[in-house]
């Protein structure tokens, strides 16, 4: 077994040279973050430090995948690694469909010019961060146009406030200590999902990237032993890892789960998810009554699509590009964005959806047709759906009252 493990780590590891994701020398961020291998994240020895048993338990619990990967599947890994670089998009995901057309679109002169312009704007925003944060509305407008990839990681840690935690823990071994604690149940659950997170991403096709994801999720499970690991978290963590160093990603993950209340979505019984679902239903009734009625008539409740969207931070049903654009704005706007963004997307597709039956609707809600959508436009119109704290609080109380009634009825 351990031999197999070593073989995987010995696989040649070429770093993606997509736009230098998250790196920002001026701010004393690690350089060349895009390769993000352990040796550059200040955790160079951590791989060998993971105690042998933890590593073994990962291998054992993942034995199905190991044997598939290493015996019958070794060809598969090799194949994936050898796929030409140009077959992946700028975020590292395998391109499907007409590659040439997609590539031409991605690197057209117009877009490159726009990117340069945006970069300069964002450079200014970063330099005068506090000033811009005071004019949130104006800042939101820039978010509509999109954050250049090279700044995304930095903006995320600034917006979420995880930068404080990162700095606080810069010279400590807290993160490492966290992922070194034994946690058999979490390890087994996490290991089962490693191969199944971003299966079409060039870095995740290789096991080294998966080890970073494993450590982050294990550290979280030990950080909040009440919430632990829940499926869906793997997509959130993997997204962070694409733009941040491992330790930065971990502290940002912690902030998301705590300050942004995401852990409530994943806890046993999904307490906050239930509330959000109820609130979203009320908002549908209020803002998209026709569509809500249609969904109800064909038998589609929010549990069939909205839960899925929230649990995977949209990843399970949307393209990666949509996911990160949502995520940018979510960090700025907080909870209301859980409602505004999905409402806007549904409104955008309302006409088409109204003519669909159960089958077609479910297919569209699970694989949302977002490729042709103008995300900048969508983001800019999101705020048209007015959502106040008062509204949300009122519905949350109503939900609790109803639930209380239901539970007492069952007892009686």
């Amino acid at each position, binding site marked *: 077994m351990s031999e197999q493990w070593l073989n995987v780590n010995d696989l040649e590891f070429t770093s993606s040279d997509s736009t230098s994701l998250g790196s920002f020398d001026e701010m004393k961020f690690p350089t060349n973050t895009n390769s993000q291998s352990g040796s550059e994240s200040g955790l160079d020895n951590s791989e060998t430090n993971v105690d042998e048993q933890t590593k073994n338990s990962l291998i054992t619990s993942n034995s199905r995948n190991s044997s598939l990967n290493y015996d*019958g599947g070794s060809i598969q890994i090799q194949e994936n690694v050898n796929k030409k670089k140009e077959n992946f998009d700028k975020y590292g995901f395998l391109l499907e469909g007409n590659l040439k057309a997609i590539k031409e679109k991605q690197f057209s002169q117009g877009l490159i010019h726009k990117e340069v312009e945006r970069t300069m704007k964002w450079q200014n925003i970063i330099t005068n961060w506090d000033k811009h944060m005071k004019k949130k509305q104006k800042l939101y407008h820039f978010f509509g146009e999109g954050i250049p990839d090279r700044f995304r990681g930095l903006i995320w840690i600034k917006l979420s406030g995880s930068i404080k935690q990162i700095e606080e823990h810069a010279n400590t071994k807290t993160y490492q200590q966290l992922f070194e604690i034994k946690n058999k149940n979490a390890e087994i659950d996490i290991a089962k999902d490693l191969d199944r997170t971003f299966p079409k991403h060039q870095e995740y096709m290789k096991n080294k990237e998966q080890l970073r994801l494993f450590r982050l999720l294990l550290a979280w499970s030990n950080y909040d032993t009440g919430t632990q690991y829940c499926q869906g978290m793997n997509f959130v963590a993997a997204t962070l890892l694409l733009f941040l160093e491992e330790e930065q990603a971990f502290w940002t993950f912690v902030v998301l789960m705590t300050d942004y209340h995401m852990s409530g979505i994943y806890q046993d019984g*999904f307490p906050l998810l239930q509330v959000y679902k109820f609130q979203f239903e009320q908002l549908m009734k209020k803002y998209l009554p026709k569509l809500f009625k249609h969904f109800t008539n064909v038998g589609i409740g929010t549990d069939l699509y909205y839960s899925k969207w929230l649990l995977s931070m949209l990843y399970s049903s949307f393209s990666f590009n949509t996911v990160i654009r949502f995520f940018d704005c979510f960090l700025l706007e907080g909870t209301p964005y859980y409602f505004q963004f999905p409402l806007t997307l549904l409104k955008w597709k309302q006409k088409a959806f109204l003519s669909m039956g159960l089958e077609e609707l479910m297919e569209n809600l*699970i694989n949302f047709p977002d490729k042709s959508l103008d995300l900048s436009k969508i983001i800019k119109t999101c705020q048209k759906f007015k959502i106040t704290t008062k509204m949300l609080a009122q519905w949350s109380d109503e939900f609790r009252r109803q639930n209380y009634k239901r539970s007492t009825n069952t007892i009686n």
Partner: protein
Amino acid sequence: MENFKICFMGDQSVGKTSIINRFIYDDFNINSQSTVGVDFLSKTIFVENESVRLHLWDTAGQERFRCLIPSYVRNSSLVVIVFDITNKTSFKSIEFWMDTVQNERGDDVIVFLVGNKTDLEDERQVSLEKLEKEANKNGFLYLETSAKTGHNVKQLFRKIGISILKQNKKRKELIKPELDENTSLMNISLNIDPNKLKQKEESGCC
């Protein structure tokens, strides 16, 4: 054409999604993405000269998601409980899945038990005798498949189609006698003797 809801359940990474993908696309990915919440796919199959539209609901396997399963089992015509023949724990969970189904539906639903990953026969942890015993005890229909090689997958869905049609016919026959009485005013005569039907029904159960 009538639609039938089929709900797939079973532990994490036993191959629920892969079995469905093999059936719908005749394709297999070693690493399919983990299912969060529930997925949905549909396909028409032809069995015994009839076409049947299957709505396949694929659920998440992690223990935490189990509390959501009852709502998916509701209105299902058939439930497929999947386990991994190379993973004893996933086999032990069958009891839990069965309880969930029975709590929600009693015996009013067909249950298929599927042992997946026969391509990993060398790593088998669940003996065939044990399986037979479990299947007989609960009156399940049992089948072993490999989503990776495609072994028995078509067969599984054919059997699903046949069982559903059979059950559907039974249901209709049970409703017809009542209909017959109520609709006699409309001069519709179906020439069915309700007593005979009932007998047939009873013998059909054995």
